[in-house]
């Protein structure tokens, strides 16, 4: 049975590759792939050229930074894993069963295959991605890797980490499915699990804090001090035991040599086997749940194909009132703003994202508390201000660079409706403008908030003479008026990518892992950064020139105003060109030729 499933996986993979290679006949995809390969080649060259990790003693300076970096990776990944698992408990998906593709459900679930085989199939499918990612990670994070600098061992280390996590997540999902099936006490169980995780996090935080206050670190920026502090922290008594599971999982990866690696493998494999046992022994209940689920899904699918209404009771988004009353007269761009705000509300503001947001806030505040306490002790009021400014900068950077990927209620969301949009009596650029308004508005709001808060958080006592309230207001106004334009430009990039490479764009929207996705995301991100630079450079140059030449004549405030007028002019013309181009491309755009 597993043979047939393996066949399915492998043939699909092969056909996918054949299809992708065939598509390279289109020049734009060829160029894109060439860029990806060039990037990988470049990175690999660098990585391979780097000498394998020398023994820690012979190069202490390198070893220090490596050790710190690795500690950060391990702690960071552990935290992420913990968050993910907690999230699974807090807001379990509607269908907590294992993820199968539509076709897999249609073919495999009614087929005479045991559920155990199905689980194995699911685990096996994941292994393709995990193996691949492991190899990739071994190359990319080689700088921090130990395992005697041996890449193969590192890859195995990564494999252990990723597999353990995958199994744990699947086990959680299956357990949740079983609990849900039993119906009684589902909420209670979940509350208990969440409480346990929270307690665990608190215990870890407390024991870390206890160690830190018992033997306070000196200047952590110094590698030597960190080298002393971090192992001490990780080895301190309660913490040492609390993080044992993570230490086991990361053991092989962080082993300092081949021998240590071998020793660390034993408990790690044991942990993995334990997880495997957990997942496959939860199978009995997965059986019933998944039959029901499969039937329900197949029925729903068949009904959808017949054109019947979906069964009642399935949770679907509800119609909502518009964000503002839309009068039939006026510029049509506003109609798109109205429509996209509506869909934003429905698709972004749901229970899941709200919970995710709350969770992030909780984590951030947990992390920030000791920092704040430290600053309060040092009794430097401006330190608070700097902290706030730093936070605002982080949020603003995220808004500018990640925001456009999240707020996608623009042309990207309307891709299936491209045919309809093109019959509207509107010029391409106006349509593009209308479509981009909603995400621009939302991202700008976030930026404005950051600008406002950070401008008044700097130097609260007013010690710097030049930073008068007039100057502050000028800064707020100037940055504030540049913010929408920046957001707008940043949103043009992904929309342009979609119009240029719709096949890639669609592929990157569907869930999945692997080099394709990795390469594409990479290119998208690089394109976004490069374009941001390209856009910001002329504006920044003009601004700097004007500011420094006029500052002496008119004073700081007016100089800032003049400089930002220049920035606005440059940005606005850039946005206009981008918009015109996007509209022009969209008029030429034909989705049906792209899916071939």
């Amino acid at each position, binding site marked *: 049975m597993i043979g047939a499933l393996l066949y399915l996986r492998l043939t699909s993979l092969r056909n996918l590759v054949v299809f992708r290679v065939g598509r390279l006949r289109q020049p734009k995809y060829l160029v894109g792939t060439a860029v990806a390969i060039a990037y990988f080649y470049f990175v690999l060259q660098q990585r391979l050229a780097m000498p394998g990790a020398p023994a820690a003693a012979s190069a202490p300076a390198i070893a220090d930074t490596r050790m710190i970096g690795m500690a950060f990776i391990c702690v960071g990944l552990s935290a992420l894993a913990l968050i993910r698992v907690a999230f699974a408990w807090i807001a379990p998906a509607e269908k907590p069963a294992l993820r199968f593709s539509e076709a897999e459900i249609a073919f495999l679930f009614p087929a005479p295959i045991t559920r155990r085989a199905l689980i194995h199939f699911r685990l096996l499918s994941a292994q393709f991605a995990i193996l691949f990612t492991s190899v990739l990670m071994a190359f990319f994070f080689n700088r921090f890797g130990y395992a005697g600098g041996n890449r193969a061992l590192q890859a195995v280390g990564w494999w252990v980490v990723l597999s353990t996590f995958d199994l744990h997540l699947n086990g959680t999902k299956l357990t949740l499915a079983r609990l849900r099936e039993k119906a009684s006490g589902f909420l209670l169980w979940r509350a208990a699990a969440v409480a346990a995780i929270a307690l665990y996090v608190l215990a870890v935080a407390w024991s870390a804090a206890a160690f830190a206050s018992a033997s306070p670190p000196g200047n952590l920026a110094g590698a030597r001090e960190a080298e002393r502090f971090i192992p001490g922290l990780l080895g301190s008594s309660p913490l040492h035991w609390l993080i044992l599971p993570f230490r086991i999982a990361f053991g092989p990866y962080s082993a300092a040599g081949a021998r240590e690696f071998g020793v660390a493998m034993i408990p790690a494999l044991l942990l993995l086997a334990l997880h495997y046992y957990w997942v496959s022994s939860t199978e009995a209940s997965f059986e019933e749940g998944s039959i029901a689920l499969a039937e329900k899904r197949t029925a729903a699918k068949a009904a959808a194909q017949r054109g019947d209404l*979906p069964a009642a009771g399935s949770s*679907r988004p509800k119609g909502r009132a*518009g964000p503002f009353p839309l009068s*039939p007269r006026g510029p049509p761009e506003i109609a798109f703003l109205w429509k996209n705000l*509506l*869909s934003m509300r429905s698709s972004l503001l749901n229970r899941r994202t709200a919970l995710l947001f709350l969770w992030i806030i909780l984590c951030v505040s947990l992390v920030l508390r000791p920092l704040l306490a430290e600053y309060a002790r040092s009794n430097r009021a401006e330190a608070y201000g700097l902290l706030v400014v730093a936070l605002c900068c982080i949020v603003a950077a995220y808004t500018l660079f990640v925001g456009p990927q999240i707020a996608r209620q623009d042309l990207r969301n309307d891709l299936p409706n491209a045919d309809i949009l*093109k019959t509207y*009596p509107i010029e391409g650029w106006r349509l593009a403008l209308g479509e981009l308004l909603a995400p621009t508005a939302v991202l700008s709001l976030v930026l404005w908030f950051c600008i406002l808060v950070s401008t008044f958080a700097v130097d609260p006592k007013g010690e710097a003479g030049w930073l008068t309230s007039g100057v502050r207001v000028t800064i707020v106004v100037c940055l504030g008026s540049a913010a929408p334009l920046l957001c707008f430009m940043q949103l043009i990039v992904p929309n342009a990518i979609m119009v240029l490479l719709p096949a890639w764009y669609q592929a990157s929207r569907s869930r999945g892992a692997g080099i394709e996705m990795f390469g594409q995301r990479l290119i998208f991100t690089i394109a976004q950064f490069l374009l941001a630079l390209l856009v910001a450079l002329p504006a920044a140059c003009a601004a700097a020139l004007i500011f420094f030449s006029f500052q002496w004549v008119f004073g700081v405030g007016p100089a800032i105003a003049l400089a930002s007028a220049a920035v606005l002019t440059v940005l606005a013309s850039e946005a206009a060109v981008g918009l015109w181009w996007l509209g022009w491309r969209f008029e030429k755009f034909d989705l049906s*030729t792209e899916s071939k």
Partner: protein
Amino acid sequence: MIEVEALTKRYGAFTAVRNLSFSVRPGEVLGLVGPNGAGKTSTLRCLSGVIPASAGSIRIAGHDLAADPVAAKRALAFFPDEPRLFEYLTVRQHLAFVARIYGVARYEELARPLLEELELVEKADVLPGELSRGMKQKLVIACGLLHSPSVIFFDEPLTGLDPLGIRRMKDSIMRRARDGASIVLSSHLLHLLEEICTHVLILKKGDKVADGTIAEVAAQFSNGEAGVNLEEVFIRATGGSET
């Protein structure tokens, strides 16, 4: 009024529509027929400005589609074969949205009878996900007719409708034509086309095989026989084996 001159549509090296010319006057209904892959959808998508034509000129209500697309598009409505709707807009919100796009000032007065005619009143505050396929199609039609277009293109308008829906659709098309609209529709349901259409255009592999009123086209392929129906004409014209 639709005037098409030497329309050609190429996809890469493949020519889907070759050198097609015809015109549809107000009040006329042109049936576009042809085997699968003949180029009907390609033609309609070019005519409605969804994809640019590779060559040739298209005039919609006197406006050249390539030179003045906005004016031309203001006069037309296009209904693709698959109903396409916005996921998060209710039925009523769809109408409000479209009204703003086309600047239909008193759309509410128009929308109510349209919704009633299409039996969508109960579903007015429902998202498209909860509509059946036929209902979706009706909503698409309501949206498209809101601005009273003088040129209408239908791609397979009758598939997915129930018998009553088909009857209503037929009546609606013929009424629009009587009111002076120029209509082009593609369909494989030839007996229905015979009832609705004043003219037919037969396409085969991108080439025009025949064009004219139904009587003219029938005469062209009747070989002197009387009472040849459109189905027989279609099969003879497109080189079906049964003759």
